[in-house]
């Protein structure tokens, strides 16, 4: 019997953690119980991207986009939607009385997106190789094995103008070409899946939703440069992505798409997974290679670059997950097609993990050249809770802040660098007026100080010194000289650090100093934190004209800092107050304010 409904359930980590797996199982159970198991196909897919609204369930052919679905809803989806043909309005995205969209593509979150890397995420079952093959999967491999030489493949990437998506934007074809030309019989291919920026999950979602795209691309690279072994270095804290990769590799081996004599071409290639323990520095390519070899993950001086002397001293191509995921499409559709997407400087698309104080947090893929305003306000739906936009942090701990005045900057490698940030791997954290910019800089620095491997002095000592100065400023003890010293240390770190971790660690400090000098000034000269985040610089006060003496705050205060008689205005003893803010949250009369 023919299937009449297809139910796509998001199986990304975000939705799974809100029980999408149970929704999936319930739907299958309910379809059985209600006698329509052979009419309804339930498919667990990769991430739909609209994580804010998860768990997401999409029902075809009606194109119903159900959001925030609960496991209990499975029964109704089967009985009402699948059996009686009545879409469940209360579950539909943006429902008021009727469906707020005609087609899923009309939803504003998706309108400006273009999905190349995430082409299969949310559309196929990532644990079924046949579904990947159905959507032109392994077609690029066919082409690469039977119709193209190694140089042809590299040339196609050159025409495409693909640049590394890990952050630095190095032309991919050049890496491959150097490795191909390097002398040696044994060469390696490595996938960097050690995604570590706070708030970033582009690579995880790509691997979870479409693992074969990475396997296929790595095999194509093997053919291009003459390698027969690939490694995927992935952090152990991505269990779902690892599981999907393992399933994908098993299926690919069974079909002979990995292993000896692939498709009868005579080409041998296989891939192994290496688990990382989650050190941020292992995302740096030389440290990553050290870790694969079983050594402590510490960066090595470059040159020699991995293309010449990489894994076990052999020429090695190392690319990031997102870079890999682009490659099969480029080979299938041609480099020229790819080069027409994006801007002159940066071709193709970029995936961003949009998080922070935004309405629609989630995974978005946009053509290069899209402006930040479009991402934050059109796709992201603007700032949550009616607050005011303050800045976006891109590039994680290596990047910088972008302010209101630069919101119309088209996103590509060059433009972001010009305004003092960087593309980075794609984390995008939105901040509102409640965020203290000095505190944000301190947060990122704390992260890089923590994650510094300690090998070189500029990073190890410079980072800690910078952090101490920021700490001083947030405590109201900073001076103007401290700012000058921060600049000196930052430049020393940029010039003297061994790897990108130390070289870029001062970026959040420099960029916040550049765009928010007045906020640093407020901390240093006025000893005030304008957004009320830095505890040493704020005081909670009770407005006697508003306080009715209900005693609610006094009862909640954990340190007994609030005193006063019933029905008379209370006062806060600032010597005792620990500035936890419980009183302000408790007060029903808005009598407590921060100064």
């Amino acid at each position, binding site marked *: *019997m023919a299937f009449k409904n297809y139910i796509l359930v998001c199986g990304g980590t975000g939705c799974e953690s809100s029980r999408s797996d149970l929704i999936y199982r319930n739907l299958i159970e309910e379809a059985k119980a209600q006698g329509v198991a052979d009419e309804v196909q339930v498919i667990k897919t990769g991430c739909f991207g609209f994580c804010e609204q998860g768990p997401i369930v999409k029902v075809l052919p009606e194109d119903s986009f159900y959001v925030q679905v609960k496991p209990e809803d499975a029964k109704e989806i089967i009985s009402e939607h699948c059996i009686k043909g009545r879409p469940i309005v209360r579950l539909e995205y943006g429902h008021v009385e009727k469906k707020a969209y005609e087609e899923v593509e009309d939803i504003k979150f998706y309108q400006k997106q273009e999905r190349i890397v995430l082409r299969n995420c949310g559309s196929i079952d990532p644990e079924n190789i046949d579904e990947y093959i159905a959507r032109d999967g392994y077609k690029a491999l066919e082409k690469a094995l039977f119709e193209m030489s190694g140089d042809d493949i590299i040339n196609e990437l050159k025409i495409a103008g693909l640049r590394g998506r890990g952050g630095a934007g190095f032309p991919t074809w050049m890496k491959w070409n150097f490795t191909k030309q390097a002398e040696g019989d044994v060469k390696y291919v490595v996938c960097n899946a050690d995604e570590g920026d706070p708030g970033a999950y582009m690579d995880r979602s790509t691997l979870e939703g479409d693992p074969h795209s990475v396997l296929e691309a790595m095999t194509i690279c093997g053919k291009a440069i003459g390698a027969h072994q690939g490694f995927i270095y992935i952090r152990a804290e991505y269990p779902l992505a690892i599981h999907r990769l393992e399933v994908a590799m098993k299926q690919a081996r069974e079909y*002979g798409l990995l292993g000896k004599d692939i498709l009868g071409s005579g080409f041998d290639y296989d891939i192994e997974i290496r688990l990382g323990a989650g050190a941020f520095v292992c995302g740096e390519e030389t440290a990553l290679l050290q870790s694969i070899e079983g050594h402590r993950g510490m960066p090595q001086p470059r040159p020699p670059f991995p293309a010449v002397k990489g894994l076990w001293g052999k020429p090695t191509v190392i690319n990031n997950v997102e870079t890999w995921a682009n490659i099969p499409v480029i080979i299938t559709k041609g480099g020229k097609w790819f080069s027409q997407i994006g801007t002159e400087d940066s071709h193709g698309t970029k995936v961003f993990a949009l998080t922070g104080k935004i309405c629609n947090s989630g995974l978005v893929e946009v053509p290069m050249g899209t402006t930040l305003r479009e991402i934050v306000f059109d796709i992201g739906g603007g700032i949550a809770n009616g607050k005011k936009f303050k800045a976006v942090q891109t590039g994680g701990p290596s990047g910088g802040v972008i302010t209101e005045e630069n919101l119309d900057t088209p996103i590509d490698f060059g433009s972001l660098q010009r305004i003092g940030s960087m593309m980075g791997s794609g984390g995008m954290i939105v901040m509102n007026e409640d965020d203290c910019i000095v505190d944000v800089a301190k947060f990122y620095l704390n992260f890089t100080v923590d994650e510094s491997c300690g090998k070189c002095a500029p990073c190890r000592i410079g980072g800690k010194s910078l952090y101490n100065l920021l700490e001083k400023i947030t405590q109201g003890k900073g001076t103007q000289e401290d700012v000058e010293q921060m600049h000196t240390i930052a430049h020393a770190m940029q010039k003297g650090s061994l790897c990108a971790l130390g070289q870029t660690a001062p970026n959040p400090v420099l960029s916040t100093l550049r765009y928010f000098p007045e906020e640093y000034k407020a901390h240093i000269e006025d000893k005030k934190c304008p957004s009320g985040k830095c505890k040493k610089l704020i005081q909670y006060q009770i407005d006697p004209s508003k306080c009715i003496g209900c005693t609610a705050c006094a009862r909640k205060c954990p340190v007994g800092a609030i005193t006063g008689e019933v029905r008379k205005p209370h006062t806060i003893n600032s010597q005792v107050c620990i500035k936890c803010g419980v009183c302000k949250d408790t007060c029903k009369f808005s009598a407590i304010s921060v100064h």
Partner: protein
Amino acid sequence: MAKLTLAGLREIREREAKKIGKREIHGRDVHVIVAMGTSGIQSGAKVILNYIADIVEEKGLDNVIITQTGAFDGVVEPVVQVYSKALGLVSYQGVDKDTAKKIVEETIIGGKILEDKKIEIKDGE
């Protein structure tokens, strides 16, 4: 699973693309809507829906998409609607298996309206 040859891989792609293509809802030429309210199901709409879906599958009509909708008032159920650019929206009432077969063969494939079963329903709602 046997190791694939080039031809084998292409075979899988062709077979699976057909299967997965059914989930692709855009760009179909003909849209068939079966009214599946409680009363519709009572009068056999479910049987008709399955029957139409099976014929469409059997004949390999990839350009046809079948969806369901709720009940209509004042008609003889089961109700089946066919929408295509050429014909616009055509509604049929009192559809039995025989009529269902005719709908597929004459209206969907042949582009001809079955006048004896036709009724006027303005909108899909």
